[in-house]
């Protein structure tokens, strides 16, 4: 009944264990103390010399919901790439998969095969939440969860325009978390998705949305305060204004300033770290962004690294995706206004290493990884599939851990881009301990997953075992074993048992009288009933495959 993982080399940053040899015991899906009666151990894995970490957690990956499904529908040609074994671009290796739009089954399988045991969909439109949970419910192997998007929805913007008190905002935010079964709140191009519907084409941090006469700064401050006052562990997840635009680093710095000292997470910050220097008026501002991140201890960020090859960008940011549509490759795109709630933009993209901008984007992402000092506050993402498919993580890990490999790759890039990057002067190589922080302990701490991301007694028994080898890409692409809730589910990088993970949520308390105003609003302006907007627990767990985990919120 008890599984014994014997003599593994443990990397468990939550308990400051950096490569110590220890035993781990698993019982009924949890990590338990050494049993007093050794005869209860029914299964032993000798892990001598093996690297043992908690299951990895992807804190930002577009795995479920409308955008990705539109991408799948629009791009049937992507399915051909499923069988590719040859690298598509010379900088990539055979482990880089270019299937940017995997089916839900493939998503679960590819994640668990890399030792990831949880992934979080970062952009759930509240009105589309049922769809997102349906897809995540069909995603096997891993735990799931999502962040609900607010800040472009008419109801919130009207509250803000009417100068509603903070309590009313807080109740609405908490109600949304419950109704959408989400664990965090995200804001995408604050006010900008809405502004685009009123034909505004750009929105700066202190520029007003023409209709509501409120600014992105006010939206950020109000939402951030709500998240903090409600005790939601996950800081407000912010996709800044001006994504992808040259010179946008100033908006990013100003957004950090707008946080007023409250915790705030800036997502896919690579896409927001661009300067305007040089002949091409496009340069790296990674140094400025990293310096600000190092200084502002309350700010966290994930990178959104790009890697070369074909992918598709799927974003709630209709305003900026509409501008980007002219770069679509293949030449097609979907831009959609959705339900006075938000929107979505799906634009296929091919990042090329001989293209100046793409090559520099690649370098900027790595500059950020290497210049941000605290691995607890920077997270490993490609903003799947926007920068690259998540299946390229092992390649990305090697770029971080192996300076020679990195510099050899850099030397093959567009020469003008090389001249504009200081990447080769950054000598840092990530350690296994630091990788375990950014992909496990840090991610769990950030999202507020109490029982995941660590190997302490009582933890959910999600565990990955690797063979320590110098080629970190090979190592991280194919774990020896992955245990999900204590069961062996992957052996030598292949799934040996299909299981279904849980859905993580956060459910802070709120004043239910918030539904009075909402009910009137739905009756007048919406096109569905308020009750049908709310997703019940049963809808997720009814068929016995799903389970809801309600993570405790911070004490307020």
């Amino acid at each position, binding site marked *: 009944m008890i599984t014994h993982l014997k003599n593994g080399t443990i990397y468990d940053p939550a308990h400051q264990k950096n490569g110590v040899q220890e035993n781990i015991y698993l019982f009924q899906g949890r990590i338990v103390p050494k049993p007093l009666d050794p005869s209860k151990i029914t299964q032993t894995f000798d892990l001598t010399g093996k690297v043992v970490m908690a299951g990895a957690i992807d804190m930002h990956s577009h795995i479920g919901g409308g955008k990705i499904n539109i991408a799948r529908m629009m791009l049937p040609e992507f399915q051909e790439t499923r069988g590719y074994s040859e690298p598509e671009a010379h900088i990539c290796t055979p482990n880089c998969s270019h299937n940017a739009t995997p089916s839900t089954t493939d998503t679960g399988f590819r994640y668990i095969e890399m030792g990831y045991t949880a992934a979080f969909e970062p952009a759930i439109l509240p009105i589309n939440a049922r769809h997102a949970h349906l897809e995540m419910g069909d995603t096997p192997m891993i735990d799931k969860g999502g962040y609900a998007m607010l800040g472009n929805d008419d109801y919130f913007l009207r509250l803000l325009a009417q100068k509603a008190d903070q309590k009313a905002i807080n109740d609405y935010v908490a109600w949304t978390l419950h109704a959408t079964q989400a664990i965090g709140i995200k804001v995408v191009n604050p006010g900008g998705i809405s502004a685009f519907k009123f034909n505004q084409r750009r929105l700066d941090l202190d520029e007003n949305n023409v209709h509501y006469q409120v600014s992105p700064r006010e939206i950020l401050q109000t939402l951030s305060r709500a998240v903090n006052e409600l005790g939601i562990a996950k800081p407000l997840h912010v996709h800044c204004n001006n994504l992808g635009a040259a010179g946008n680093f100033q908006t990013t710095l100003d957004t950090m300033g707008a946080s007023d000292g409250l915790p705030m997470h800036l997502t896919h910050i690579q896409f927001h770290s661009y300067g305007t220097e040089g002949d091409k008026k496009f340069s790296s501002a990674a140094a400025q962004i990293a310096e600000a991140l190092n200084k502002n201890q309350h700010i966290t960020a994930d990178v959104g690294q790009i890697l070369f090859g074909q992918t598709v960008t799927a974003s709630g940011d209709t305003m900026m995706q509409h501008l980007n549509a002219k770069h*679509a490759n293949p030449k*097609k795109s979907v831009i959609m206004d959705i339900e006075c709630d938000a929107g979505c933009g799906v634009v296929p993209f091919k990042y090329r290493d001989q293209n100046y901008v793409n090559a520099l984007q690649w370098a900027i992402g790595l500059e950020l990884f290497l210049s941000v000092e605290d691995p607890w506050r920077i997270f490993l993402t490609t903003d799947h599939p926007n920068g690259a498919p998540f299946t390229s993580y092992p390649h990305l890990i090697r770029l971080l851990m192996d300076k020679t490999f990195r510099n050899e790759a850099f030397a093959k890039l567009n020469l003008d881009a090389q001249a504009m990057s200081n990447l080769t002067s950054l000598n840092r190589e990530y350690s296994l301990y630091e990788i375990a922080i950014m992909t496990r302990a840090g991610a769990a701490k950030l999202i507020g997953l109490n029982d995941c991301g660590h190997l302490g007694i009582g933890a959910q028994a999600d565990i990955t075992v690797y063979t320590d080898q110098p080629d970190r890409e090979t190592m991280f692409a194919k774990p020896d074993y992955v245990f999900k809730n204590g069961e062996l589910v992957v052996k030598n990088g292949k799934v040996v048992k299909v299981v279904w993970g849980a859905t993580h949520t956060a459910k802070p308390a709120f004043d239910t009288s918030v539904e009075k105003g909402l009910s009137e609003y739905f009756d007048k302006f919406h096109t569905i009933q308020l009750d*049908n907007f709310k997703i019940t627990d049963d809808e997720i767990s009814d068929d016995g495959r799903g389970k809801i985990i309600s993570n405790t919120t911070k004490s307020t």
Partner: protein
Amino acid sequence: MDSAYLNASTLNATCPACGLLCDDVQLEIHQQKIQVRHPNCSKTKLFFEQAQIVTTPKISGKPASLQVAIYQAVQLLKAAKAPLFAGLSTDILGFRTLYNLAQKTNASMQHINAQSAQRNLRVLQSAGWQTTTLTEVKNRADLLVCFGTDIVTHNPRFFERFIWVKDALFCDADGREIIYIGENINTSAGISPAGKKPTVLACKTEDLPEVTAVLRALIQGKTLKCTQVAGMSIRALYDIAIKLKQAKYGVLAWVAKDLNFPHAELTIQNITESAVLLNQTTRAASLALGGSDGDTSINYAHTWLSGVTLNDTPIAHDCMVWVYSFSPDQLPRATQSPLIVFGQDDTAFERVPDVFIPIATPGLDCNGTLFRVDGSVTLPLKKCRDATHPTLSDILSQIEMQL
């Protein structure tokens, strides 16, 4: 109060009869008999007030027990090398189990609306589009152009629920401008409550490719040498182009089923690319309407489960499984192969199925989940009466276990 009233119960329900999924339906249920109190919609009435059919599973037309019918279906599926699961008129929950069974039996799949759905999908896969959803239309649209459709034949409450509304957030609902382009269209729904009549440009359906191409060119600012197209003055189309450019949020709508001619996707692309052009200076969006038999839902779920959309190419098969949960009038496609039918009623069949198993209808006899035609909204369907038949998932799970 009379006793009939005392015995009646009321229920709020969601109607799966068309792609709008109206969820403001009020039912009165008295001794298992359902009456629609609201709305006054012919499709909703037809769906909820349909009689409960009491029938049994059948093998070659002869009543059989459920276990024997399931056993017979299993034998036919085991013998088949390439089954085709067709019709696919069901909801997400039913489709999930159907998809699993298809995986296990190496079956292909095709929805009953495959042809009309493909007209839209080809546009999405060739150029993409800029679209909108119904709550945006309700609160924002100041101009609606209907291409080759009156909409209401498919979506009876479209104008009532999304156009002639009492309150709209960002525009004057009563002042909206409605334009129809096409033939034999019932334009009465386009008359505003104040009596303002819609603009109607008559043209034959087969001329829509040309007319939409001209409109697209005019929006693009091209000068045309001709003065007429399909019997219509260029001037009239030019006026529409100007109105679309001046509108704050023009909506260009069509129903793929009404564009039933070869290469209709090119006409739809003229419409969607017109919206893309308009968005260079103002805001506009295209809107595909219609929807029935869970077509949007099945296509979405198939896409996330498999990675690709369903298609409409003819599929060779050696056994057909026909699934119809919503429309009893949709008969199985002609096939020479063994035929297994999961549906409501078998009385209208031209050919006696080898196996017939009656199933519950989602939204009436059991719960369910469907996507609305605009794709972003998913709604739960409710059980409204005691079911006499098992659900599709129940039956398929039993079949899967015996395979």
